[in-house]
């Protein structure tokens, strides 16, 4: 299960969060934990450099993309390697939606599009689509290219 996808700006303010299977009373704890993890480790990190951590049976993969930080939390079959795959899909789709690694402003400008991308990538905690070109077409309600299948 992909338990959470969280995007914050570099100051730790939440821009976007999607939780699956985490009760609302525990969400604040996760927000705080993830943002602290980023504050401790992401300073000076290279763009898209991947970081990994584990907390009990849960895995976390996080990174910096332009002006935003992205955190993904998973458990069971979504271990660190599966999360890396998910992270790759998310970062490439965001770059695709924004045209480049987004600044915070650009991320917010393309907010609706990014929400649609995430909707195609993760559905209630399960990975659905993994190809950025396909995702780009799907969010425009266009069928994927036959060559991509």
């Amino acid at each position, binding site marked *: 299960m992909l338990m959470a996808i969280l995007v914050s700006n570099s100051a*730790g303010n939440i821009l976007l969060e999607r939780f699956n299977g985490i009760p609302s009373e525990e969400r604040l704890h996760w927000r705080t934990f993830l943002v602290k993890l980023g*504050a401790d480790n992401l300073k000076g990190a290279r763009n898209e*450099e991947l970081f990994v951590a*584990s907390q009990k049976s849960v895995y976390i993969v996080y990174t910096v993309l332009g002006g935003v930080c992205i955190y993904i939390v998973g458990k069971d*079959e979504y271990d660190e*390697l599966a999360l890396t795959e998910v992270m790759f899909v998310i970062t490439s789709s965001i770059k695709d939606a924004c045209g480049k690694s987004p600044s915070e402003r650009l991320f917010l400008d393309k907010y*609706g599009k990014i*929400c649609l991308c995430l909707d195609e990538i993760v559905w209630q905690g399960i*990975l659905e689509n993994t190809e950025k070109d396909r995702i780009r077409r799907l969010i425009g309600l266009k*069928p994927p290219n036959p060559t991509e299948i």
Partner: protein
Amino acid sequence: MAQPLVKKDDDRDEEADYSPFLGIEKGAVLQEARVFNDPQLDPRRCSQVITKLLYLLNQGESFTKVEATEVFFAVTKLFQSKDIGLRRMVYVMIKELSPSADEVIIVTSSLMKDMTSKTDMYRANAIRVLCRITDGTLLTQIERYLKQAIVDKNPVVASAALVSGIHLLQTNPEIVKRWSNEVQEAVQSRAALVQFHALALLHQIRQNDRLAVNKLVSSLTRGSARSPLAQCLLIRYTSQVIRESANNIQTGDRPFYDFLEGCLRHKAEMVIFEAARAITELNGVTSRELTPAITVLQLFLSSSKPVLRFAAVRTLNKVAMTHPTAVTNCNIDMESLISDQNRSIATLAITTLLKTGNESSVDRLMKQITNFMSDIADEFKIVVVEAIRSLCLKFPLKHRSLMNFLSNILREEGGFEYKKAIVDSIVILIRDIPEAKETGLLHLCEFIEDCEFTYLSTQILHFLGIEGPKTSDPSKYIRYIYNRVHLENATVRAGAVSTLAKFGAMVDALKPRIFVLLRRCLFDTDDEVRDRATLYLNTLGGDGAVVETGADVKEFLFGSLDIPLVNLENSLKNYEPSEKPFDINYVPKEVKTQPLAEKKAPGKKPAGLGAPPPGPPSTVDAYEKLLSSIPEFANFGKLFKSSAPVELTEAETEYAVNVVKHIFDGHVVFQYNCTNTIPEQLLENVTVIVDASEAEEFAEVASKPLRSLPYDSPGQTFVAFEKPEGVPAVGKFSNMLRFIVKEVDPSTGEAEEDGVEDEYQLEDLEVITADYILKVGVSNFRNAWESMGADFERVDEYGLGPRDSLAEAVNAVIDLLGMHPCEGTEVVPPNSRSHTCLLSGVYIGNVKVLVRLQFGLDGPKDVAMKLAVRSEDENVSDAIHEIVASG
């Protein structure tokens, strides 16, 4: 948290002209959502409003029921628009709003229309939305379309239906299970993602059918999965099949191993890693099987990607627990990870090295760890300390360098948990490695010179008091202990006084010097410290001369208190100051059962200072002591057996009563342990009236009432019966609790003077033959059996009737006989159809008995048993058969 967690739009100073969502407010956005109702829809404007709504929702904002309903109804109007971008937003919005069952109906027809639309993408999205919001009844209506969609030629539609199936399987399994033919077809799809989703769903549908999973794996492992993701799933399902067909291991023919091994050469790292991990987790994996997996994991250790390094070191760390030698080849790569920027990776590398390192590499390793320790957090340090402790126990000869390391890190900065872990480790090493004792104690002494944690100081002082006097030169510790009396808070000072007194009591030569120090403590500002000093000075005796301390004084001062502290505390609270001094002999010794919630997790080994002191003497000794102290029972002779407590009341009743059956040669004593759970009541003169009309061979000879039973302070009352000597008499007893009840004023805690006599019915109690058999084990059953000889052997066969399992039948017979299972034969291997269980015991009259039970399944559930008994007395052998025959 390093940064304040505020919403984006609250951070106005820096971002004043920055965010497109600046100043966004829920109320205003809900107002804006009215544009959805315009007759002339503006798709662009509507999309913007939906984006704002999504922004609010994605920031954790929640809508009230009314707000959500209003927005939902407005959004459904947008189905009128033909704008594709807007339609896509509408789908997302409906999913985010998750309308309630009564609202879903509004949107169902629009979605159904989209689901049968010619536009593929409408179909795919409508399926996803419908499955998200639908319930069981609607699902049966759309099931037909979903089944078609699973095999749709458009992969997006098929994937949408398959992923919907995965979700719906949780809520409507019986419907989704009907789709397995279609899903099976989708597994063969050319589209990679469709195959991945179909495989996941098919496995979930069939996960309880071992044969079907086996077939699925067999067919797919022959071909190749179309995506790395599907290949990973296949590897996982394959390991499951291997686990479940573990029986083939004996033949050396592990199914599917070649497939796993082949996956180690896959081009995707994800697949390679999954296969390597699956191999390392195989049951009873051999080193030949492990080698290729370890080799690829070793390559990952030097990968530039932290995720791969982490995954590899995490897996190798697990392997090191069971196959340390297999991992030693990776030690050089692992050592370079100690300096990895990612502290999780570094800690895993270190703890793995500590598990796999050999004696000669310990010193080098410790040098590397020393540099590493300063820049990791306490939680990682604790893991390292625990690993070092295990290493030291593994290589006791290295205790000097490991102990030095522990003492060095003990001096550095750190929180309580970390310091406690170090101190616990030193204590365990002192206990387990005699050569490490003196240096370890000195390290602890140095630590308390500058210890900021009262708890740790007092625990160390207590430990010093036990171990210090047994060393070659106890006097060297006195300075450290006495320093505490000058420099610390009252709690630590009191602990130090007790420790000094222990040295005085145990080391006669030190006594005069200890007396001088204790006398100085008489002027302490704290009562407890002064009281302790006075007590020790008066009881140790000898007036400071070099004389031996009496054993009884040592026992009184430092012996274990065989009374539960909570009982002593309750009795002291209930004691009313009077002429009559408090008598510790009246404190109940029965340990009150802990409420379930307070019980510690079972199986956790107590460690270090946190470990409880040696427990009270064994239950039998305690019972014997207790019974012999009661004059009425003093002449009953030696106690043969005491049963486990049998509950006579249900849980959570007003009065909780259980009974222990004490068996003597010619008597039986029932010890009723009573607890009063009503705060407003005081019970007095508590007795149990026993009706033994169904136990003809028993005659009541004595009864010892309980004088007073205050709230929550357990007490005991006894009833004794005479029975024919040496005979295993059996019978049934009915019990009635009789007492005088007095009301207690809750505000003052005082009881009224007058009470009322009352009775309380208890459950019946039985004395059975198993009560006359002691559980006594033998070290070698075969030898014991043969030396006993076949003179008084009795063999017979019994049918035990249908049973749930063989294990259940075995346990039932063990319980019936009350004998000791030998050589672990009480454990029945799963799926066995026959089992032999060996029991030993001592029958009343001190007659040794051995039992060999052979069980077999007769038909599907019927259990048959052959019982062979050998004993020193043929009557006893017969008696055992009678127990089984009548049980």
